[in-house]
C-alpha cells in the first residue's frame, strides 16, 4: 500500500484516498507544434523500472494535485512536492541520488 504525504494539506494519505494522474513533467505541445512533437506529448511515456515521477490528486481529501517521486520496483517514496514546478526540487533529486546513485529519468539526473 502506497502512502504519500500531500504537500498541499499536510496529510499522509493512503493510496485509496488518492487518484493517480500518470507521468509528471510532461511538456505540452499545442497548436503550431510539429506532428512528431505532438505525438510524443500525446502517446510517449516513460516506463521505468526504478525512479519515476508521477502526478497524484488527493481526491478524497483537499482535492489538489501534487507530484511524487518514487521507485516503481520497491514502492519506496523519495518525496512529494507541489505541482507548480517544471522539474523536481533539488532536495528531492539529492534524496534520490543518495539512494540510487547515477539515476536518470527523461532529461533529469
Amino acid at each position, binding site marked *: 500500500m502506497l502512502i504519500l504525504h500531500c504537500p*498541499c494539506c499536510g496529510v*499522509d*494519505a493512503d493510496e*485509496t484516498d488518492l487518484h493517480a494522474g500518470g507521468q509528471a513533467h510532461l511538456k505540452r505541445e499545442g497548436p503550431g507544434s510539429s506532428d512528431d512533437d505532438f505525438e510524443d506529448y500525446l502517446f510517449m511515456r516513460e516506463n521505468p523500472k526504478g525512479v519515476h515521477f508521477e502526478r497524484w490528486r488527493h481526491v*478524497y*481529501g483537499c482535492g*489538489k494535485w501534487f507530484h511524487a517521486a518514487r521507485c516503481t520496483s520497491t514502492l519506496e517514496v523519495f518525496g512529494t512536492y507541489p505541482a507548480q514546478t517544471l522539474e523536481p526540487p533539488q532536495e528531492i533529486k539529492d534524496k534520490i541520488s543518495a539512494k540510487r546513485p547515477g539515476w536518470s529519468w527523461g532529461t533529469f539526473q
Partner: protein
Amino acid sequence: MSNAVSALQGRTAPGEVTIREAGLRGMIILRGDLADKKLRKVCADVTSVKFPDQGQANSEGDKGLCWMSPDELLVLVPYTEAADAIAKIDAKLAGTHYLAENVSDARAVILVEGAFCRDVIAKLAPADLHPDSFKPGDFRRTRLGQVAAAFWMRDEDTFEVICFRSVAEYTFDLLAMSAKSGEVGHFA
C-alpha cells in the same frame, strides 16, 4: 416556503456508541484566499470562533469553521442563519475573488457519541486516528467505506461526520454497524 427536512430526519441508532443524524445544519462552502484579512474578519463575524489552522476545525455549538483545503473553508451556522451569513460574506468580500455557496441541503451531519467513538471511525477510514495523532479539534477529509466524508472530534467522546446527502443513509448504516460490532481496543 417549503418545509426543509434533513436527510434522515434525526434517525438514531442507540448503543454504547450512539449514532445520531444531527438534523438540519447550516453549511456554507467558502472558497478564496484564506490569508485575506477581510475573509478572516467576516468568518469571525459570522461564527465568532477562532480561525482554524491547517487541518483543524473550531466549533462552538452549531457554529464553526473547518479547514477543508488551502483555499476552502466550511462555515457552520444554524440552519436558518445560512442565508444571512452568505449575505454578510457577499457584502464584505464584494470585488475580491471568492465563492460562497449554501450547501446545507446537499450535506448531512452525523454524530458519533460514546466512549469508543474513535474505534468506530478508525475501522472505516484510511486515516491515522491514534490518540497521539488525531485529537479534538483535528479535521480530516477522507473516505468512510465507499464514500467521501469529513470528520472532526468535538471532544474525546464525540465525532462529527459530514457526508453528501445522497449517501447519508449508507454512511449512517456503516457507522451504526461499526458501532454495533464493538470496540477494537487497539488504541487502549
